[in-house]
């Protein structure tokens, strides 16, 4: 769905995006993670033909961007750096205007399309008050409604849950999963690890303009092959297991073993009180922190 080859964007001597090779496959919910200032928004703008790459290639839906913008963009819904609308008009009037801008739309079904997308983002009952009186959450929902107006094949969303309360975040997550279930590929740019971990099937991590990690979420958080044990009797356990212990902490240890059940039996036989025993998994947070340096917006002295 999205493929980039050594995509690079330079502003003068500053390299905002540095030779990234994105690979978003059909059906993915792709989490595009990165600290603020790591180049996420610049990348999104290049994918949508708003900014021009310094070098490298972009293929979206199999066609080159920015060259084939006119054929590709009608199949894409986008939310870039916060929603925007004409403040003096109502939400419905805004959607009608944006819908009319794209000449490929069928005018007859405009009204039903608008009502359906308003319903999907939870704004179905909104009255005709102007958008400038909307709350941030309502604007965000309206922006999403605009993005899904044309039932796009690909959704490119930049921080879509910004300004929403936990309930709203939950609703948007369900909406994205629902759309994905109906065949929409989602490219979700975010700095919120939890959001990506709960929603996405595939993850790319951007650090200071470089793509430092790109893999399936399931692979990244798969069991490491080691077993983790939580116990108050660390010393006793080390004695019992000897060389099989990889790391010993204050309240638990990591063990290299082919047979966790036998290990457990050995521990219990040695009188170790086992609180918890299971396969070791890395959380997405650990994976991301290991792959990246401190945030690009921190300007600490070296």
């Amino acid at each position, binding site marked *: 769905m999205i493929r980039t080859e050594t995509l690079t964007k330079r502003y003068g001597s500053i390299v905002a995006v540095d030779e990234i090779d994105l690979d978003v496959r059909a059906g993915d919910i792709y989490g595009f993670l990165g600290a603020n200032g790591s180049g996420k928004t610049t990348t999104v703008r290049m994918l*949508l033909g*708003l900014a021009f790459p310094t070098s490298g290639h972009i293929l979206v839906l199999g066609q080159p961007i920015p060259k084939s913008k006119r054929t590709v963009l*009608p199949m894409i819904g*986008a939310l870039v*750096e916060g929603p*925007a609308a*004409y403040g003096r008009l109502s939400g419905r009037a805004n959607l009608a205007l*944006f819908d009319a*801008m794209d000449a490929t739309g069928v005018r007859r079904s405009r009204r039903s399309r608008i009502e359906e997308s308003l319903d999907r983002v939870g704004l179905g009952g909104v009255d005709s008050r102007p958008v400038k009186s909307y709350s941030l959450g309502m604007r965000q929902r309206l922006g999403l409604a605009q993005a899904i107006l044309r039932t796009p094949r690909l959704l490119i969303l930049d921080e879509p849950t910004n300004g929403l309360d936990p309930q709203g975040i939950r609703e948007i997550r369900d909406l994205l999963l629902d759309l994905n279930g109906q065949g929409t590929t989602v490219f979700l740019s975010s700095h919120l690890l939890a959001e990506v971990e709960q929603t996405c099937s595939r993850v790319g991590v951007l650090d200071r303009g470089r793509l430092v990690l790109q893999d399936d979420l399931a692979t990244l958080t798969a069991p490491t092959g080691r077993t983790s044990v939580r116990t108050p009797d660390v010393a006793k356990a080390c004695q019992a297991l000897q060389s099989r212990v990889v790391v010993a902490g204050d309240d638990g240890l990591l063990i290299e073993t082919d047979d966790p059940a036998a290990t457990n039996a050995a521990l219990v036989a040695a009188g170790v009180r086992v609180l918890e025993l299971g396969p070791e998994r890395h959380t997405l947070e650990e994976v991301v922190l290991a792959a990246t340096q401190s945030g690009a917006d921190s300007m600490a002295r070296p």
Partner: protein
Amino acid sequence: MIGVELRKMLRSHRTWITILLINALPTLVGVLLALTDLGPRPGSGPAFLSAVLSDGTLFPLAAVAIVLPLFLPTAVAVVAGEAIAGEAQAGTLRYVLVRPVGRTRLLVAKLVSVVVFVLLAVLVVAVSAYVLGSFLLGDQPVSASVSGTTLTSEQIAWRTALALGYAVLSMLGVAAIALFLSTVVESPLAAAMGALAVLIGSSLLLTLDAANSLSPFLPTRYWLSFIDLFRDPILWRNVLRGTGLQLLYVAVFLGAAWANFTTKDITD
């Protein structure tokens, strides 16, 4: 896209308030003339104003001559300056472009919308001046051309229409300059002020003998040449030059706007 821009412009209260404000000055002048019966001496004051006390049907021309030097270009600069920069400031530009609306198409739609705005403003000024002129001002047909010969009312009618068209055309240069600046700066106000600065500079240079060699190229040089349409016979020279000059400004600045806008990164 042109339809969308027109809808946006026509539905905006600001459009109509601006037009009403433009119309306020000639209306005030007309009412004052009617109440006091004190017209400017022939040859002084705005064009045609001395004649309207006797022939009110000439008032549309006088009204357009009143708004053309300052009111109308100011409004045009504001409206055209807002075209791209205003969308960028509101954040809607990126959503318009990914809809997708081609950048060239957007520019053309904005220019068309500005031209329609000018057309509306001139029409409102002319029509309300005609109504005011025929009810409040003189009703003895003067039918005199600037040259002193007599014109039939039919001749006056079509020459008035021509003059109104020329007034609209005269605003194209300002519109193109403001539109170009609107693609360069991010603030609509800065774009409007920039275009106005060009006009003020142009008016000032016109008064300077040392700048004589420049004057045929100054955007405001031929604005009031529509008076020549009321000479007998019509003196086409300056009207045609003015038309050519405005088209030249449109070509140069719309070209520059296109070159800049289609190659720039949208970072609003």
